[in-house]
C-alpha cells in the first residue's frame, strides 16, 4: 500500500501534471472568491478539457480546482461578511468581526492554515481508510443516513444558544422552506405558489447569500465606514499570529477536520452545513466559547475553515468506492471517471489503486498549493478592508446579485436573495439566530426523504439498528445539553416559568412575531389539502414551530429582559454594541437614522432590480456602480468611470463570455430585440 502511495506520488510530481494541478488551483481559488460560483461550475466547465489528458492529469486539474474553492472563499467571508461559497457561511460569524477590528490578516492566517490542515487531513483519512472503505460504506443504509442528518439537525440547539426558543423556531421554518416544491413521495407541489421557479425547491445559493451577505452589506451602508473603520491593518504580522493561533488550538483543528471529512463522506450532508456543524461543535466544547464566539474569536474561524476543506477528501469516499457522489461536484467528477475508462467501485481499490492514490495526492497537494498562494497574496486582499465604503459597496453588491442569480438563472433568484436579505437583516437586528435556518433548510429535506425510505423499507425496525441508536443518542445529547444549560442560566425550570409581569413589552420584535405567526399560520393552512405523505412532515414541523413561536412570544412580551447575554451568534452582540435595543427609549434618534439609511439601501437594491428588468443586467451594473459612487461618495469622475466600466467589463467577460450565463431578459430588449443582439444581457 505504501509502495503504491509513493509510486502515485512520483507519478504526480511529473512537471506537466503539477502544472495542471497548479492551473486547477488557480481557477479554483478564483471561483471560490466569487459568491455563487464554486466547484460545481468549475467541474462542469473544465470537464471537456480533460478528455485529451491522461487520467492522472485530468484528476489533478479537476481536483486541484475542486479542493481549494473552500480555501479562498474565506477572503470575501472575512472581508465583507459575504460567503464565497456556501461552505464558508460560518466563517463570517467570527472572521468578519475580526476584519472590523483590523485583524483581517490574523483571520486569513488562521483560516488558510486551518484549511491546509483540514484539506490534508481529509486526504489522509481517505488514504488510510482504503482497505476498509467498502465494508464501512456498506454498513451505511438509509436509516443511518437519516440518523446522520438528525445528528446535524440537532446542532441547532448549540447554534441558538442565548435564544433557544427562537433558534428552534427558526430551524423549524428552515425545514418548512426546504419542503417547497415537488414532494418525492406523492409529487404534490408544496408551497410552490404556482410558479415553475419553485418546482424543484428553493435554490441554496440565493438563500445563503441573502441571509448572510445582504444584511452585512446593509449594516456597512448604515454605518457608512470602511470595513476596518479607522483601525490599522495587520497584514504580515497578523498572518503569523493567525498561523500561531492554528497551532495553539491544534486539537480543535484536528477535531473539526475529522468531523468535516467524516460528514463529507455522508451523501446528502453538504458543504453548506458542515461548517455550521463544526462551528456548533466548537461553540459547545471550547472553553468560554459561549461568551466570545460571534465577536471575533479566532477559534470560530478555525472550526469553520478546518472542516470545509476536509470535506472534499471525505466526499471522494463514496464516489470512488461506489460511484455514489458525495456532493454535487462529485457527480460531475463521476463523468471524468468514465471518460478515462475507470469504473468507480472495487476496481478503484485494487486494480486501479494507483489512480486512487494519485487522486488523494492531488487533493493534498492542491490544499498546500492553494493555501500557499493565498498566503502570498492576502497582504493585498487585507487592504481591501480599508477601501472607502462608497467604492466597495456597489462592487460587492453587484457580484453577489450576479452570484445569487447563478442559483437557477431565474428572476426568482433575484427576488429570493432580496427577500431573504430582508429576513436576515431583521433577524440579525432583532436577535434571531440565522444559522439554524440554514441547517434546517439543508437537512430538513434529507431527514424527510430518508425517514420515508426507512419506514417504507424497514417499517420501524430500523430504529433498533446499533449505528442508528448510537447516532441518535449523540444527537439527542447534543440537542438537550445546550438547552439544559440555557435552562440553568435562566435559573432552572422554575426560573424559566417565573418572572412574568403584567406590563407587556411591545417593540419591533412584536411586529416580527406577528409576521411570523401569519406566515407559518398561512403555510400550515395550505397543507390541509395535501396527500398524507406530502403533509406529514410539514404539518408536524409547522405545528412544532408554531407552538414554539407562541411560547417565545409570551416570553418576549411578558417577561422582563434577562441580563445575561450569552449569544454565540453575532447578532446578540451586534444588538448590544449597536445599542439597538429598541425597548430603550433614549435610542429613538439613532433608530431613526438607522431606519432612514436602511430604507435608502433598500431603495438602491430595488433600483438595481428595476434596472435589470428595464434595461438588462450589464447596463444596470454600469449605471448602478457609477451612480452609487457619485451619490453616496462624491468620488472623482475619473475613478467612477474606471471602476464602473471595470466591473461591467469584468462581469461581461466572466459571466457572458466564459460562463455563458443566460441573462434575465429586459423589457427594452423584449421591445427591441435588435438591442439584445448588440448589447449583451439586454
Amino acid at each position, binding site marked *: 500500500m505504501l509502495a503504491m502511495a509513493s509510486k502515485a506520488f512520483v507519478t504526480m510530481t511529473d512537471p506537466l501534471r503539477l502544472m495542471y494541478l497548479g492551473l486547477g488551483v488557480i481557477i479554483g481559488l478564483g471561483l471560490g472568491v466569487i459568491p455563487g460560483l464554486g466547484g*460545481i461550475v468549475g467541474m462542469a466547465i473544465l470537464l471537456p478539457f480533460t478528455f485529451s489528458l491522461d487520467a492522472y492529469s485530468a484528476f489533478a486539474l479537476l481536483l486541484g480546482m475542486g479542493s481549494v474553492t473552500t480555501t479562498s472563499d474565506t477572503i470575501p467571508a472575512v472581508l465583507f461578511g459575504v460567503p464565497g461559497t456556501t461552505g464558508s457561511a460560518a466563517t463570517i460569524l467570527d472572521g468578519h468581526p475580526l476584519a472590523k477590528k483590523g485583524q483581517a490578516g490574523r483571520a486569513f492566517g488562521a483560516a488558510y492554515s486551518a484549511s491546509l490542515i483540514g484539506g490534508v487531513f481529509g486526504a489522509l483519512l481517505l488514504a488510510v481508510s482504503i482497505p476498509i472503505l467498502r465494508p464501512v460504506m456498506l454498513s451505511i443504509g438509509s436509516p443511518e443516513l437519516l440518523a446522520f442528518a438528525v445528528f446535524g439537525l440537532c446542532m441547532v440547539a448549540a447554534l441558538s444558544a442565548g435564544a433557544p426558543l427562537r433558534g428552534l423556531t427558526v430551524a423549524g421554518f428552515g425545514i418548512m422552506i426546504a419542503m417547497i416544491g415537488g414532494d418525492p413521495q406523492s409529487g404534490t407541489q408544496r408551497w410552490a405558489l404556482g410558479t415553475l421557479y419553485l418546482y424543484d425547491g428553493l435554490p441554496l445559493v440565493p438563500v445563503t447569500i441573502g441571509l448572510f451577505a445582504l444584511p452585512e452589506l446593509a449594516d456597512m451602508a448604515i454605518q457608512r465606514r470602511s470595513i476596518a473603520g479607522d483601525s490599522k491593518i495587520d497584514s504580515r504580522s497578523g498572518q503569523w499570529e493567525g498561523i500561531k493561533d492554528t497551532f495553539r488550538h491544534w486539537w480543535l483543528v484536528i477535531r473539526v477536520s475529522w468531523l468535516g471529512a467524516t460528514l463529507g463522506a455522508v451523501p446528502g450532508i453538504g458543504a453548506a452545513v458542515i461548517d455550521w456543524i463544526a462551528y456548533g461543535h466548537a461553540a459547545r466544547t471550547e472553553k468560554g466559547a459561549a461568551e466570545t464566539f460571534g465577536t471575533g474569536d479566532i477559534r470560530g474561524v478555525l472550526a469553520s475553515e478546518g472542516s470545509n476543506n476536509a470535506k472534499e477528501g471525505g466526499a471522494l469516499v463514496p464516489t470512488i468506492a*461506489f460511484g455514489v457522489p458525495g456532493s454535487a461536484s462529485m457527480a460531475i467528477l463521476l463523468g471524468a471517471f468514465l471518460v478515462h475508462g475507470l469504473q468507480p467501485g472495487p476496481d478503484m481499490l485494487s486494480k486501479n489503486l494507483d489512480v486512487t492514490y494519485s487522486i488523494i495526492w492531488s487533493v493534498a497537494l492542491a490544499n498546500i498549493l492553494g493555501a500557499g498562494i493565498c498566503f502570498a497574496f492576502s497582504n493585498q486582499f487585507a487592504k481591501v478592508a480599508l477601501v472607502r465604503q462608497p467604492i466597495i459597496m456597489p462592487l460587492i453588491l453587484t457580484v453577489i446579485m450576479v452570484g445569487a442569480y447563478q442559483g437557477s438563472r431565474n428572476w426568482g433568484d433575484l427576488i429570493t436573495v432580496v427577500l431573504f436579505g430582508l429576513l436576515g437583516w431583521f433577524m440579525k437586528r432583532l436577535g434571531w439566530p440565522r444559522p439554524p435556518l440554514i441547517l434546517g433548510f439543508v437537512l430538513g429535506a434529507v431527514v424527510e*426523504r430518508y425517514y*420515508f*425510505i426507512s419506514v417504507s*423499507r424497514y417499517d420501524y425496525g430500523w430504529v433498533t439498528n446499533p449505528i442508528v441508536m448510537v447516532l441518535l443518542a449523540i444527537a439527542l445529547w447534543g440537542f438537550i445539553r445546550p438547552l439544559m444549560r440555557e435552562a440553568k442560566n435562566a435559573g432552572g425550570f422554575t426560573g424559566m416559568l417565573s418572572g412574568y409581569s403584567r406590563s407587556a413589552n411591545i417593540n419591533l420584535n412584536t411586529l416580527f412575531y406577528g409576521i411570523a405567526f401569519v406566515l407559518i399560520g398561512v403555510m400550515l393552512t395550505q397543507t390541509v389539502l395535501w396527500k398524507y405523505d406530502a403533509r406529514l412532515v410539514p404539518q408536524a414541523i409547522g405545528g412544532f414551530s408554531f407552538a414554539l413561536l407562541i411560547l417565545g412570544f409570551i416570553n418576549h412580551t411578558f417577561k422582563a429582559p434577562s441580563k445575561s447575554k450569552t449569544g454565540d451568534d453575532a447578532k446578540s452582540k451586534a444588538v448590544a454594541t449597536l445599542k439597538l435595543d429598541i425597548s430603550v427609549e433614549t435610542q429613538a434618534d439613532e433608530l431613526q437614522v438607522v431606519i432612514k439609511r436602511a430604507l435608502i439601501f433598500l431603495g438602491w437594491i430595488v433600483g438595481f432590480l428595476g434596472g435589470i428588468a428595464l434595461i438588462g443586467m450589464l447596463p444596470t451594473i454600469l449605471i448602478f456602480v457609477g451612480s452609487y459612487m457619485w451619490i453616496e461618495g462624491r468620488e472623482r469622475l475619473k475613478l467612477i468611470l474606471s471602476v464602473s466600466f471595470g466591473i461591467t467589463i469584468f462581469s461581461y467577460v466572466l459571466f457572458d463570455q466564459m460562463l455563458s450565463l*443566460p441573462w434575465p431578459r429586459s423589457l427594452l430588449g423584449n421591445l427591441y430585440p435588435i*438591442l439584445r443582439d448588440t448589447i449583451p444581457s439586454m
Partner: protein
Amino acid sequence: MKFAKKLGVLGLAGIAISAFSATPTLAQSVADFYKGKTITMWVGYSPGGGYDTYARTVARYMTNHIPGNPKIVVKNKPGAGSMLVANELYNVLPKDGTAIGVIGRGMPMEPLLGNSSAKFDASKFNWLGSANNEVSVCVSMKSTGITDWKQLLTKQMTVGGTGAGADTDTFPKVMNNILGTKLKLVTGYPGGTDVNFAMERGELGGRCGYSWTSLKSRKADWLKEKKVTVFLQMSTEKHADIPDVPFIMDLAKNDKERKILSFIYARQAWGRPFLAPPGVPADRVNALKAAFMATMADPKYKKDAVKQRLEVGPISGDQISKLMADLYASPKEIIEAAKRATNSDEKTDVSKAVIPTETIKGVITKLRNGARKVSYKGQGRKGSLSVSGRKTKVSIAGKKAKRKKLKVGMKCDFTFRGSAAKKISCG
C-alpha cells in the same frame, strides 16, 4: 423634459432599427443568416448531467454542419425537469433559428397528461432529432433469486425510486397495473446512483427504469460479475444488445394494453430530443435537421461520444415529428388509461380500466367470508372474485338469488372485471 425627449428619440430609433432588421429575411439564404451569428442551445438541466453532456458534445461539432457555421453556445436553465426551457422555447425565445434546445424525454407527454403548467403543444415544435433512443430495463440483484418477471406475479421484490413522476417510479407502477407484478416501490432516493448503492448494500432488491446504456457503461462490473439479472426491457423497440431479455410490448395481453404501453414508452424513442421553437423559417429548420443528422454521422462526434460512454443511435427529427403526431392523436381513453397506469398505486383501479369484462364457465372451489369471496376454476384458469351484495347479480337456476345460496361445487358462468364479480349465474 430633456430626458423624455431623448427617450423618444431612442424609441424611434429602435422602431426604425427593428423595421429594418425585419425585412431582409425573405431574400436571405440560410448561410447568409447564420454567418457570424450565435445559436444558443438551451439545456433544461444543470451542468454535468446526461442531457447536458449530450448537448455539449453535439454543440461542439454541429457548428461545422450548419451553413454559415454559426457559433453554438450551450446555456443551462434548469427548472421543473426542463419544463421551464420547453415553455420558453415555445413561447418566449426567438423563433428565427438562433435558439434551439434539449428537453427531457417525458416532457412532450406533460400537456397530454393534463399538466396545466406545461404551456406548449409538443407536436408543433420543430424536432431536430434525438441523439439516441433509450431502452429502459428492469434489474434484480442476485440475492433476490428473481430471474424472470413471471416470478414477480407471485413474489414481492423491492425496487427503488427517485421521486414521483420519475421513470424509476412510473415504470414499476405500470408493471404492477398492467402485467400484475408485485413490485414494492420505495421511493425518495436523491438519484439513480443512490438507488444503485442501496441495491448493493441489500436495502433494495432491484430497479425498474434504468437506461440500458447507463447500466452498461456505469455498472459494467455488475453485468460482468453477474451481480444483477436484466429481466425486462421497456421501450417501443428492442435493444440489439439484449435480444433474449423479454420485451414489455410482447407481454401486452390485448390490443388496448399494447396501445397503452406504446403511449407510455413512446418517449424512449426520442431518448435525448433536440428541438427548435415552432415558427422558425422552414429552410433554417431543414438546415438544422440536416446538420443534426450530419453531426451524428461525424466521425469526430462519434469518437467523442464513445469516449464519454454516450450511446450513438440517432433518430431523425422527421421520425420524432411523426411519432409525436401519433402520440397527440391518441384516443382520450388510451391517454386516460395510461395516466392511471402510470399514477395509480392501487392495482385494481387500473385493472378496471384496462382489463375488459370477461366470462368464464367453471366451478366454485371455495367460499369465504359468507361468500363475499368466491374462488373458481374453469377453462384452464382459476382465481378468486369479490362478490358484492348490491353490484353482483347472482342467480341460481335462472332465478335471482342471494350470494349466501352459492355452494362449493356449483357449475356457474362467472362474469367479472378484474377481481370484481359482475354476474354469477349457476346451474
